[in-house]
Each structure stands twice: as structure tokens, then as C-alpha cells.
């Protein structure tokens, strides 16, 4: 399981082991100020990080920052 969450401290507190920080609370996988193509690029980037996190061995809670 990988948790793509905006508020990383909450994710850590509740015990997620693989965490990918998301963009913002109202739009974790987007940015209304950008075009749809730019938003999809943001989504793609985050999802690629999520897949990478799922394939990464971790011993403890790990935040996958950029």
C-alpha cells in the first residue's frame, strides 16, 4: 500500500509505511491553476512515484519526497 496524502504528518501518525506527498488538500493530484495537460503531468509524476514506492523495500515509515 502506498499513501498519497497531502498532510504527511497525519499519514505518519496513523502509521502509513510508504508515503508520497500530494499537491494540496483540495486537489492532491492536480492544480486548478494549470491546464489539463499540465495537471495530468502532475498526476503522472505522483503516480510514478507511487509505483516506485510500492517497489521499494522499506524498513520503517518512509516519505518519498522528490
Amino acid at each position, binding site marked *: *500500500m*502506498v*499513501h*498519497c*496524502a*497531502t*498532510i504527511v504528518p*497525519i*499519514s505518519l*501518525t*496513523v*502509521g*502509513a*509505511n*510508504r508515503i508520497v506527498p*500530494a499537491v494540496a*488538500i*483540495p*486537489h*492532491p*493530484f*492536480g492544480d*486548478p491553476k494549470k491546464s*489539463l495537460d499540465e*495537471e*495530468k503531468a502532475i*498526476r*503522472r509524476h*505522483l*503516480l*510514478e512515484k*507511487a*509505483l516506485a514506492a*510500492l*517497489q*521499494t*523495500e*522499506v*524498513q*520503517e*515509515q*518512509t516519505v518519498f519526497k522528490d
Partner: protein
Amino acid sequence: MKGGETMSYRIVHYINQFFAGIGGEEKADYAPESREGVVGPGMALNASLGDEAEIVGTVICGDTYFATDMDKASVEVLELIKKFEPDAVVLGPAFNAGRYGSACGAMGDAVSKELGVPVVSGMYPENPGVEMYKKSLYIVETPDSARGMGKAIPAMAKLVLRLLKGEKLGSPSEEGYIERGIRKNMFFEKIAAERALDMFVSKINGQPFTTEYVMPVFDRVAPNPPIMDMKNTTIALVTSGGIVPKGNPDHIAASSAQNYGEYDITGVMDLTSEDYESCHGGYDSTYACDDPDRVLPVDVLREMEKEGLFKKLHNKYYSSVGNGTSVGNAKKFAAEFAQKLKNDGVDAVIVTST
């Protein structure tokens, strides 16, 4: 009637077949019965009540009889209780007995609603009756077995007398009952900031202090091994961001969700505002409603699926609302749908949160 000239309060005592001395499990289907005066532990309860109150009658019901059809049994037991014209009703104590505790709680709730008289029970905090009914009646905290009878009975007697006399109750710990989850505003001499600092200073100095708000305890899970073969992996989406089909067919609450939804996305390549919405009340849902992929990224995941980066996106996703939802409920929902995901052969989950 005990005591002198003055009328004492009339108490009805509810107990199960075991404490009535009728039998154990083999008699758990015992139908409701009422008897004059005290039965079993009612004797000790009566003594603890002293001159001010008296057990005028005891209603007995088998735990299994009650559990099998709680609505029907409630009606029957209530009728028997009513006949005694009680000023208050004491149920149990049930200690950690689950069916007994549920019955005491359910009856306490019914008596409270129908008769409007004080109701007191006694249970071990982990008794399921506590979680279900703590808001409806006062439940004195007891140990987990009948060895605690000697302490439970006087505590229950004391509390019911205070309720009968309309005395103002102190905090749960002062009165010995289990916290009901009811918030009461109160004034303190010091403002909150000062009280917080006092606690902080005590904490730094290694001195004891009492928190005004007990934090929930979060457990830890060992990290799972990494996915080794992503190309053959089935991925599922789960969200706490409240993305649901338009119209929120399962009525998932905007706050303090009582349920989660399971939604089929077979053939869905992109979430749009026409077919989906956010029902989450804890963030500005404008952007999520305009394009739900911003919270549940189906569109790009479908593209990645098509490219073969992983085997497939599971045809169902699970959704609830994280806002104000109790840890208990969240755990319950997740345990349930995690099992479904496992049964469906899902290998990995991406959980999205706002």
C-alpha cells in the same frame, strides 16, 4: 417497604438467567420473567441502597433469548418492568459478558426513552454493550468478571441514588462511570492557554499531569515487502477524499462517515463532473467536483495501465470520507474492504487522501 415512614424510591433490577440462579448457557434461552423483590445479586444491591431506595421487583431474561430478537425481547421486558412502576432501573452488572451487556444496554436505552427514569448499569469497558449504549445510560466501570461484584454493586447503588435525587454529577472518573462521549462545556478559573502551559511545564519537569484530551492510540504495521513484478500487478484505488458517483447513492456523510462505498469503474477511463462528485465536507470540494481525477487519479492510471506499467487497474474502488470519521469506523471499513480486495486478487493499493 424498608425504612421508616418516608416512601423510598422504587427500583427494578434486570438480570440474566445465570445471575438469577436459573442456569448457565443451557438456560440462556429463558423467556422474560418477573419476580417480586430481589433475586441473586439484587440482595446486595438492595442492601447498598439503604433506606432511600428499594428493589420492588426483578426482571429476568436469558441472554440468548434477548440476543436472538432484541426488538421483541425489549418490548416484552419493558412491559414487565413497567408493571412495577419504577423510579429507576438498575441493569446487571454485566462485567464483560457480551450478550448480557448488550441486553442491559438495549433495555437501559428503552427504559430511558419510554419511561424517562434514571438507568444505571455496570460493565467492563471492553463489553460491546459499552460502545453501543454508553450514551443512553450511565454504565459504572467494573472489572471483567463477577469477582468484581463486591465493588460494582455499591458503585451502581450510589450512582442511581444520586440520579434519583437529581444531584449534579461530577466527572466520569469521580462518579465511577465510563465516559459517555458527551461533551459538557465548563468554566475553569485559568484560561486554556495557561492550563496548557502548566501541563507542559509539568511534563518537562517529569511531573505528573492530567491531559484534558486523551489522544487515540495508533497502531503500527510492519512494512510489506516491495512489489517485485509490477508488470503483473493488479492495483486498486482507495480514497478518503469522498469521491463518489454523482448523487452520492450510498449517502456517505460529509463528516463522521458511517459507511464506505464500493464502486465499479469497469470501462471508466476518466472521472468527470457529470458522473462523479466529492461528498467530503472537510475541504473545498469545488476542484474535486470539477475534475474528480484530482482526488482519485483514474484518468492517468488508465493511461499507465494501457502502457503496461502494471497489469491492471482493479474494476472497483473504495471510498469514504476522512473528515471527522472515527478511528474505530475507519479501521472497521478498511478491514472489511481490504479482505474484499484480497479475495479479488488485488496485489497493491494506492490510497489517496486530501
